[in-house]
């Protein structure tokens, strides 16, 4: 009995030491698991855009995601975008449904440069992403609650940013904050994720806030009616379904 107790203590110490010994890349991978383990998600979203603290506009939409790449956004307001839908598939393939013309148009990925509906979000911000596939992680510092990591692109990867700083909470490996830098090394914008909820062991944010460092802009995306891992069909992410008035 005494011998078994000693073994248990040794094993516990070993596991604790192993957790502490996680490399920055492993921390990033663990954080990504909150994203990659979500097979699908559906939610309603409301995006508010502020300038100098004053609300400029609110865009509402429903969003369905499957895996890391399939995404269907249907805009429900305001009226100038209502009925418009965006379907994104693997390899950056993107379609937009234009209700005025009842037409689906292929959209080249250069439009991502335009930002998302006049907000500080970009199209990539609207997708789930596994950062560890594209970036190498380095530890900046840590405290008892968080790690601060610096991410730089992996050689040959399609990383869209030259540098990201990421704050990962130790409990649940939750990414709290992402700061994006410009090519010249200046801060470009900061993404703050909050209101995390536990979905069967997966922690997902219910609010994403983007603060621009180059303008007086702020955009806040709030999620409601969140459902995850409901077994969404691949058929839902097709041009045939995009044409439907939903």
């Amino acid at each position: 009995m005494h011998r078994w107790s000693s073994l248990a203590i040794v094993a516990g110490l070993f596991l604790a030491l192993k957790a502490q010994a996680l490399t920055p890349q492993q921390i990033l991978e663990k954080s990504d698991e909150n994203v990659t383990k979500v097979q699908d998600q559906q939610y309603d979203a409301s995006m508010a855009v502020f300038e100098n603290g004053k609300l400029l506009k609110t865009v509402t939409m429903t969003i369905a995601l499957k895996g890391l790449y399939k995404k269907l956004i249907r805009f429900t307001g305001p009226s100038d975008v209502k009925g418009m839908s965006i379907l994104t598939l693997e390899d950056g393939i993107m379609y937009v449904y234009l209700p005025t013309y009842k037409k689906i148009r292929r959209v080249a990925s250069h439009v991502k440069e335009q930002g998302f509906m006049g907000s500080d979000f970009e199209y990539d911000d609207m997708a789930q992403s596994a950062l560890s596939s594209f970036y190498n992680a380095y530890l900046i510092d840590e405290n008892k609650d968080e790690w601060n990591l610096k991410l730089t692109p992996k050689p040959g990867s399609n990383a869209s940013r030259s540098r990201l700083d990421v704050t990962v909470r130790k409990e649940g490996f939750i990414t709290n904050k992402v700061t994006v830098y410009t090519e010249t090394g200046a801060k470009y914008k900061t993404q703050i994720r909050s209101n995390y909820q536990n979905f069967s062991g997966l922690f997902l944010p219910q609010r994403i806030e983007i603060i621009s460092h180059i303008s007086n802009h702020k955009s806040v995306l709030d999620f409601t009616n969140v459902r995850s891992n409901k077994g969404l069909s691949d058929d839902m992410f097709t041009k045939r379904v995009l044409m439907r008035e939903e």
Partner: protein
Amino acid sequence: MIRKAIRASLCLAGLVVAGNALAEDPKFGLNISSDIRADVDRVDKPGFSRNENRVEGKVSYKANEHIELVAALDAVFIGFTQDNKLMGLTDRTNVDPFRLESDAAYVDLLDIAKGLDMRIGRQIVQWGAADMINPTDNVCPDDLSDPLKFGKNIANQMIKVDYSPWGSMTFTAIWVPVFRPAQLPVSVNAAMTDATNEFPFASPQARARGENLRAIWLDNPDTYDLRTPDVDVDVPDFSFDNSQVALKAEWEAGGWDMSLSYYKGFDDMPVLIDVKSTVDVMEGEKLGVNSAVKMAYPRMQVLGFDLSGQLPFLDNMGFWVEGAVIFPEKKLLSIDLTGVVPGAEVITSPVVDDNPFFKATVGADYTPISWMMLNVQYVRGFIDEFGAYALGNYMVGVVDTKFLSDRLGIRVAGITQLPRKDDDIDLPDPALGLTRDSPSYGAHDNGYITSYVFFPQVMVNPWGALEIIGGGYFLFGPKESKFGQIGAGSSLVFLKAQVGF
């Protein structure tokens, strides 16, 4: 027996309850827009040409996972009183006329089997990868009444079936029981009375003979008074033979979207098939020329293709190609001026010959900086051009800019008709000093001719739901050119506002 009926009723009630359990609340939409325009050039007298208010209502209801209903109805208040008779002004429909339009009144049957949808009823189908000018888009007729819409489709009643057996592969089959023609612009009437319009013969020889005859009254404006012709249009009847069929297969491969399509039906623009002119009244020293004109819609079959994607070696610039080979029905035009010019021959020659012809649009778009998007297209054969001899070449460009978080947009669009050789026959001109003011100027060989459209707009969107658009639509070019001819309409300025939920 009664027990069976009760059991069946209960089962049915159960299905209804189950169906209702899946039903979603109806979704409503309402838009109100106001559109005021003024003709500023190429008209006898500048003034307001549109004063339209539109109330657009839309409702969709998903009864269950297999059935969805969509209905849209627009009430359009025209804004111009349409009667100047005393009794007419006692009727509100004359004093404040309006019309109804509908883009949608259909039932969607969804996932009938795996990957199989059907849409039955009034709907718009728009095909083609290109922007606005789509040679493969022939199922629905064009609305040419509004030049700012560039041929936006009008809905028609049809049955459409979509089947996606695997991956991105989708097959579409459409049956349109009854043909609907394009809505023509008001300027078509002015074009009919413009004797300098080109004769639409496919054969240059027939066109030359027509021009020589026409010279008789063009060169004698003090002798002849050309009256507005009486034009009849033969719209295809409602027989089964005149049903239209369209098929399409589309798929994605290697990052490119592709499609092949087929259409069997009619061109939605009528062509002249018969002109008979007579002189019947003496008016002072002038002879009144009356013309009876007949038009018809040529049958056609269309084989189309399109391709769209992006070019990685050009920073993912968007790129598309869309083309269609059109196999037209031969249509003959007969021009009988024997009643005006005694002894003249009746000229009969194809207005559309049966040689297949090719229309195409090739384009690209790019975002050089976050607030600017560029779009350029080459067009072979404009929306209204039909027949191998009638096709022109055009460049279309759009610069779209957005500022202040999309609250301000400035869009500048332009169309250029690429210069073409005017093949008119030089008519005898006794004055020997032909100028643009000469009555027969448009009927002469003017060398290479070109024309332009300049279409600037400013869009203000202060609070999301409200959009205000102001701009102009300006036409430039000589009388015989694409955008300079009378039929192209007037240059105008406009102001629109729209709001909705």
